[in-house]
Structure formats: structure tokens, C-alpha cells
């Protein structure tokens, strides 16, 4: 009655084979590697921003917030593949609780919260430009990994962004270098001037870049 459709047919009901198949499928999935990479990068960023230990009041609370955001992000990414039924009527209470948990874990912007809290953690330390620059690079990598994990794309999908990221890395290094320049005067105005200069460079690059990308990239 219908055209034959080729597809992998499920095998016999063998539990071991099923679990082995699931394991192979999970390892073969590009999302799995991206998810693990995102979780590890998030943890590394938090640890990097935290060491050598918190300074000032409220640092422990910010660290707690960062951990909560990272755990939420990790759960969201890990459980992204679990399908949700169209309706939850007449389902057992345990299953309804699980589905509600899945629904609510997907709502908050965990990664945005993690980025803000990690940057906030870094502020608690005194100025250490290269340390902060590395943290910035790790945060960008974290966001890229999160995007790959949730979109299911392969890392090659980010290839067009490499030139822009390279330019961004240069500006990152430039920002760190500006921060390392010795102050002309001990006043606060000197640091503000350097900050404005760094921001101006970034803004200028941001304004020029679209014209370059439309022509060359």
C-alpha cells in the first residue's frame, strides 16, 4: 500500500543491547560533547574568577549565585533532549512533578546569570589584567559551547566567526595591556581615562567591523 521506506528497524527486546545502543547513541551525538564542554568551561570560569579566594563582603553570596546558575544551566542542557508530552492530564503525580521540573528548568536565563555572577566575582579581586583577559576568553568559549549544545550544531558551524573572534582576542589583549600601563598620576581620573580609552577602541572596532564583514567575510 505504500512505498518501502528504508530505516533502521528496532531489534529484539534485549535490555543490555538497548542500553549499549543508547550509550553509543549518546557518545555519537555532537550535543553530548558540547554539553560536557559547556559544563566544564562554566566550572573553570567560576573557579578561575574565584581563586585565590573571595575578597570583600558578599563574595560568598555571589559565588553561591554563580553555582546555582551553573547547575541550572547544566541541568537545562543535559535534559534538553527529554520530550514534553502535549498534555499532562491523568499522568501520575511523580511524572507530573518531573515534567513540571523540566518545564521550569528551561525557563530562566541561567547562562546570562552565570556570566554576570562570574564577572561580579572577578570584580571582588584587585586588578589583575591578564587573569581577567583569560577569564573573558573562557567566557566567550563557554557561551559558544552552550550555543552548540542547545542548537545541536557541530563546531564547524562557528568557522565564519573565527576572524571576528580573533579580532576580539586582539582587543581583549589590548584592554589588558591598557590596564597594565602605569598610571600617569595616582588620581582616580587616570584609571577612568584609561577605561574610556579602552571602551572607545572597542566601540570604534564595533563600528568599523560591519563594513569589513559585508565586503570580505
Amino acid at each position, binding site marked *: *500500500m*505504500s*512505498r518501502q*521506506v528504508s*530505516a*533502521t528497524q528496532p531489534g529484539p527486546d534485549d535490555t543490555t543491547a538497548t542500553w549499549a545502543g543508547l550509550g553509543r547513541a549518546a557518545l555519537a551525538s555532537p550535543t553530548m560533547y558540547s554539553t560536557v564542554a559547556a559544563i566544564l568551561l562554566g566550572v573553570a570560569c567560576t573557579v578561575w574568577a574565584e581563586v585565590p579566594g573571595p575578597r570583600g563582603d558578599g563574595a560568598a553570596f555571589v559565588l553561591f549565585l554563580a553555582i546555582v546558575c551553573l547547575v541550572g544551566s547544566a541541568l537545562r542542557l543535559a535534559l534538553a533532549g527529554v520530550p514534553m508530552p502535549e498534555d499532562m492530564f491523568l499522568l501520575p503525580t511523580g511524572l507530573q512533578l518531573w515534567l513540571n521540573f523540566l518545564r521550569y528548568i528551561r525557563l530562566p*536565563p541561567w547562562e*546570562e546569570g552565570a*556570566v*554576570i555572577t562570574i*564577572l*561580579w566575582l572577578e*570584580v571582588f579581586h584587585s*586588578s589583575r*589584567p591578564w587573569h*581577567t*583577559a583569560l*577569564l*573573558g*576568553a573562557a*567566557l*566567550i568559549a563557554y557561551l559558544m559551547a*552552550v*550555543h552548540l549544545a*542547545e*542548537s*545541536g*550544531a557541530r563546531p564547524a558551524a*562557528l568557522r*565564519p*566567526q573565527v576572524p*571576528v*573572534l580573533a*579580532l*576580539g*582576542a586582539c*582587543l*581583549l589583549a*589590548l*584592554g*589588558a595591556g*591598557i*590596564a597594565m600601563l602605569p598610571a600617569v598620576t595616582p588620581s*582616580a581620573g587616570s*584609571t*577612568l581615562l*584609561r*577605561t574610556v*580609552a*579602552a*571602551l572607545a*577602541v*572597542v566601540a570604534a*572596532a*564595533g*563600528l568599523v*567591523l*560591519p563594513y569589513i*564583514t559585508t565586503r570580505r*567575510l
Partner: protein
Amino acid sequence: MAEQVAKLEVRWRLSRHAYRLLTLGLAAAFIATIARRPEFAGVAAPALLLLAAGRGTRPAAVTVHTQASTGRAFEGELVALDARAEGTGDLLIRWTLHPGKGLDPAGSASADGARVRLLVRPEHWGRRQLGTLDLVLRDRWRLTEGHVSIALPRIDCYPHPAEQQTQVVLSKLPNRLGEHKARTWGDGTEFAGIRQYVPGDRQRSINWPASTRQGRLQVNMFTAERSQDVVLLADATSDVGEPGFSALDLALRGAAAAARAYLASRDRVGVITYQWGGATWLAPGLGKRQLYKIIDTMLASDAGWAQGSSFQRLPRAALPPGSLVIVFSPLLDQRFVETLRDMRERGFTLLVIDVLNAEPPTRQRIVDRLARRIWKMEQEAIRFSLRELGIPVVRWDGVGSLDLPLAPYTRRPLLQSGTRR
């Protein structure tokens, strides 16, 4: 199935990735300004540059072609859905299939590319929407996402027929050419005996060895080969039991199997779906197309309430006299049982296949146990009364072949009412 073409508007919005980059850029710039730390301006740089670079053409509409491999499929059969998008330029495309109720994606429900093939497998019979197909367009910077949703066509999912190889044959068959051996002599191929030659007999039918032995010319006799009218009566009143193996599931699968088996032996097969006193019917017919017509008729009656004409006023075409009526029912509706008795009294030959596959739950309370016992006794009484009327009742569990419960009636012809033994 015909290709479905639609030009659809694309809803564009910033991706979550863009929102995250924006958060990083703004937060770092804000901290740099407030804390007067230039290194945070550098942290903001990659994110802001990516956001600034991400400009591209975004089409307002795309043309989507979708085509299912078939409009009809049996339970468990794979259905392929081919989708193709036009007018997307160099955008990255991701398709995600959200199957409709009763359909299960076979393999991955998502695929990338301008042209994809996705597979679904119907789990349960019925007329079902294939679901919706979501198309996500992403620019090369992955900062904006365009969303398109396509409603997929409907498919008819047929119940998977049970296994049936043998047929119940009536003792008295109408004078119509077929494949069943009749009790009369005719021009068939089955040897029935020999008789003395009479002028007019064909010379090729002379049995020479017998003629030599008896000294007179003897000719071979053959049985006539006839066909019969079979009416499948499916009781859709009660649907009890485990989903997937309920009484209605078994009735439809059994009826589909019987239709296939009788149509294969050149019988004319029709169907009547009984539902709360109403009936949807299809007159007996021949051929392979009749099988699909029969299943379509059964699916059409799955509307949940009485449809069609009254069962008591069915035309002669729906229920031809002398036809074999095979009933698939859990025998839970008293009115249906009365209808069977009435049909028997009108001279129809009936065979009931009991598809009741569930019992009331077992509970500890003595009242519940008593009620359960009374219910079982009532069910036994119903079946006994039907047998007393000459209506055979056989039980089928829906798992095994239908040939097994029907074996006592397929070995020899089923006697019709008023026929001498």
C-alpha cells in the same frame, strides 16, 4: 501523496546566543565603567564585535515543499516525510518534526539542510494529523533566528491485520463462481467421484481405468467451486481493555484480517460497524481495493457516537440473504446481543468472535468480589444463550492467529439455519 507547497512568512527574532553575548558585552562594559578597570572593556570586546558583525539578508518569506510517502499506513509501518525549503539563500536550516498524537518519530526528529527526510511510525490506528514541522533559519553568525511552522497533512492509519489463513465456508453457497468447494457437482478441479457415462458427456472426462474394470464407460465428476458473501460486523459500542489491545482494537484488527483472508479467496466481503444502534455499512464487494474500503469504513465510524443508518433498517445490499456474518464483539452491550438473536431468527448464519480482553479489577472487598463473580456469570450466560441459538462463539486474545479459535469451523462447512445435517 501529493506534494504540499506553501509560501510562509518568517518570524525573525534575536537568538538566545545573541542575548547571551549582549549580556556579556554590556555587563563587562558596565563593570569597566563603574569599577574603572579597562581590562573589563577588553572582556566586552569579542561579544560586542560578534554582535556588530552579525548583519545579513533575512528573507521575509520562504517556500516550503512537504510530501508524505503515503496517505495510508498500517500500524507500525514507516512513513517518510520529505521536506524542502526554497528562498533561504545561504541561511542555515534546521527542521524539527513534532509528530501528532499516536505517531512516533522513527530515528531523529530533527535534521539540517535545505532538503530532508524524516520518518514517523503510526502507533495506533485512526485518522491522524502527521503533526507540525518547525523550520528554524539561522544566519551565519547565529545571532538571529527565523521561525516557520508548517501544518502537515493527515494520514489514515489502518489497524495492523491479525493473521488468518483459513476461512469459514458455508454449507450452502450461492451459484457464483469462486474458490470454495460446494456440495454439488460442477466444473471445478476437485475430484468428487465417478458415474456412468451418458450421451453429452465430454470425452476427456472419461475415466478409462474405471471403465475397463466395470465394462462400461465411466466419467469423472468434480465439485463445483463457488464463492460466498461475507459480512463483517464490528461492534464499536464498547471499547474496554488496555490501550492498544482494547476490544475495539482487536475487533478492527480481526475484521481487517478476515477481510483480507476472504477477499484473497475471491469472496465478496462487506462490513457493518455497529455503534449504539446505528450502523455504518459497506456493501459486499470483490478485489483488493475492497480491503481498503472496508478499513476506511471502519475508521469513518470511529467518531464516538451513532452515525449512519439504523441497524434495524439496513438495506438488502448491506446484509445480503444467505451471507455469512462474522461478528467481532466483546458482547457487553445487551442491545447488540439482542440484535444478534434477531439476526439469527431472520435466518442469517452468524459466527461470533469474542474480543473481550479485560475483566473488572480484583479487589478485596467481598461486595466487589461478589459483583465480579455475578458479572462473569452474566457474561457466560450471554455466550451460552447465543450458543443455544446456534451461534458459535469463539474467543480470540488478539495475540495469536485467528486460525486457531476458528479451527473447529474451518475444517468443515458451517451449517446454515434450515440446512439438514
